[in-house]
């Protein structure tokens, strides 16, 4: 009975939908949206998840007796090759944790770097000065991500500007390997996603009534206290959004680590890429990709919980 009623109301709302949009437009709306959701968003992720539990088979073996589910791809990330002698797969686990921790650090540095500017732009300048600042912020980000990373490679290279400068000043005797030490990588990663931090922060701080800051100052609140107790609590959704976006993009970055990473150090995405490309083991790569996806989902959930914001606040830019 209840199911019948549910079906009826579904039919009714479907009819209302067609009535409201007309047949042609309804067909367009539904085809594109369902196609997007089913064939581009949901099914590919499910297929990847399914694939991560399979053996790496030749095309003709797929669907055959060997095509059974297995946990070995996940086991490999944890414990390494079976009978490999090691307790855990330290090489890959270390890369995974290094990627996550480094991404958190990059996110924090990014926040500290951008917060003052966002505050300045939102509360201190108005009119033409503000517009000029916006334009200056946007311009570098119209330039390709690869070229931005390459610019940092030039600066930090053995024959680059930083080494030439430091040797010229007599601080260094010989060039320091900034690329090998990942200095270039972290500087480049921080640079890459500045905009995604600045804009959410700006939007959130901009809506704060300046009188509140004035009032706090009149009452004798210190500069630090004004920010910690008034501006930051107000800007919480913006902080959550900026930090989440920057973390996700940094953890999922592939171009900057490829170009700026030292030869001996890897980013987790680079291992995934190796499984696909030179490794030729797609199920293994899928398992690694799924672990990355899961970490990102957990991170977003934590941010939503800690900052008490919805997904819409985070994705809105």
């Amino acid at each position, binding site marked *: 009975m209840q199911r019948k009623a549910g079906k009826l109301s579904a039919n009714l709302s479907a009819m209302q939908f067609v009535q409201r*949009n007309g047949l042609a437009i309804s067909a367009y*709306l539904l085809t594109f949206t369902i196609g997007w*959701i089913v064939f581009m968003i949901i099914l590919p992720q499910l297929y*990847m998840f399914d694939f991560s539990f399979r053996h790496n088979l030749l095309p003709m073996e797929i669907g055959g007796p060997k095509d059974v589910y297995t946990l070995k791809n996940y086991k490999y990330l944890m414990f390494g090759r079976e009978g490999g002698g090691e307790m855990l797969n330290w090489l890959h686990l270390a890369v995974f944790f290094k990627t996550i921790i480094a991404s958190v650090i990059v996110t924090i540095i990014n926040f500290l770097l951008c917060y003052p500017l966002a505050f300045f732009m939102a509360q201190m300048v108005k009119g033409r000065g503000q517009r000029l600042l916006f334009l200056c912020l946007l311009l570098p980000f119209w330039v390709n991500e*690869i070229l931005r990373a*390459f610019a940092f490679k030039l600066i930090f290279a053995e024959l680059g500007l930083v080494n030439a400068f430091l040797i010229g000043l007599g601080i260094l005797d010989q060039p320091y390997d900034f690329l090998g030490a990942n200095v270039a990588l972290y500087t480049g990663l921080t*640079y890459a996603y500045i905009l995604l931090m600045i804009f959410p922060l700006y939007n959130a701080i901009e809506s704060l009534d300046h009188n509140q800051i004035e009032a706090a100052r009149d009452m004798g609140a210190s500069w630090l206290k004004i920010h910690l107790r008034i501006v930051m609590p107000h800007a919480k959704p913006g902080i959550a959004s900026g930090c989440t976006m920057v973390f996700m993009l940094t953890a999922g970055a592939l171009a900057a680590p490829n170009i700026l990473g030292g030869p001996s150090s890897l980013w987790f995405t680079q291992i995934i890429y190796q499984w696909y490309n030179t490794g030729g083991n797609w199920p293994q790569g899928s398992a690694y990709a799924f672990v990355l996806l899961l970490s990102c989902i957990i991170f977003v959930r934590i941010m939503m919980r800690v900052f008490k914001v919805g997904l819409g606040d*985070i994705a809105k830019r």
Partner: protein
Amino acid sequence: MTSNQIRAWVVRGYIALFFLYLFGPLIIMSASAFNQSSYPTITPWEGFTVEWFGELAQNDRLVSGFINSVWIGFGVVALSVPTALAGAILLMQVSDRVRPLYYTIVVSPVLVPGVIIGISTVIFWERFGSVVGLDYETTNNPFFLTIVGQSTFISAYCMLVFIARLQRFDKTLEEAALDLGATHTQVFWKILIPFLRPAILSSVVLAFLTSFENYNTTVFTMVARGTLTTELAGLARFGVNPSISALAVVIMGLTLIFAVIYEIKKRREEAITEASVKRAAMKRRQDTAAAAAQVAT
């Protein structure tokens, strides 16, 4: 100096450093394109040259990558802008109960790492294609995969642009047109689409540029082929040759021109809407003043 003056100088110094960080690397890279040194650097300066630009045009892989990028960009615009529009309109119409779930799903591609979108697209079409019996050549075509893969998240970006505009849509316009006997299709083309035109333009630009410069998804979906961005990444990774700097100068020059035109256009549009809002307000004020005068006499 008072403490206020000191603070003002600290702020100025911070902003100067911030923009030095932002522009310094790009300026140095551009300068290195004109240095004769065979290694891209500005120290030491070995003399001015433009020979690295000549070398660019002879790099066949970059040229064909560029052409591929343009075609893919068109494909992504053609697929993602209509998808984004449909997604945004539906969001306005789904019931309150379904909306949070629907929104979570369609906005999730923004938050999923591009690498994962690339991988899952390749796997899905390979496996799904063989299960359903689609033509292998089609479902594993690098252009098809790249356009579909990139559109997955670019549609979500564009949808956010449409949502922002749709929230200001006056529904009574639609109702009035329907009352006056317009068909739904007419309302869509004659009222909704003209209202959304600025958002459509923004999404077209956004979709094309995002597609053009995407690396993380494309490097998986292009398989053995390359776009300008993936070819460039290969060069930037292994080769150290000033012709990359030269290409950077070309791309930066083009994007700068493009960005400035886009900004000016946007500014002008904003100015026009602002002016019309002001005019309307002024007219209303005049009307009320006239009415008041009438009442007074």
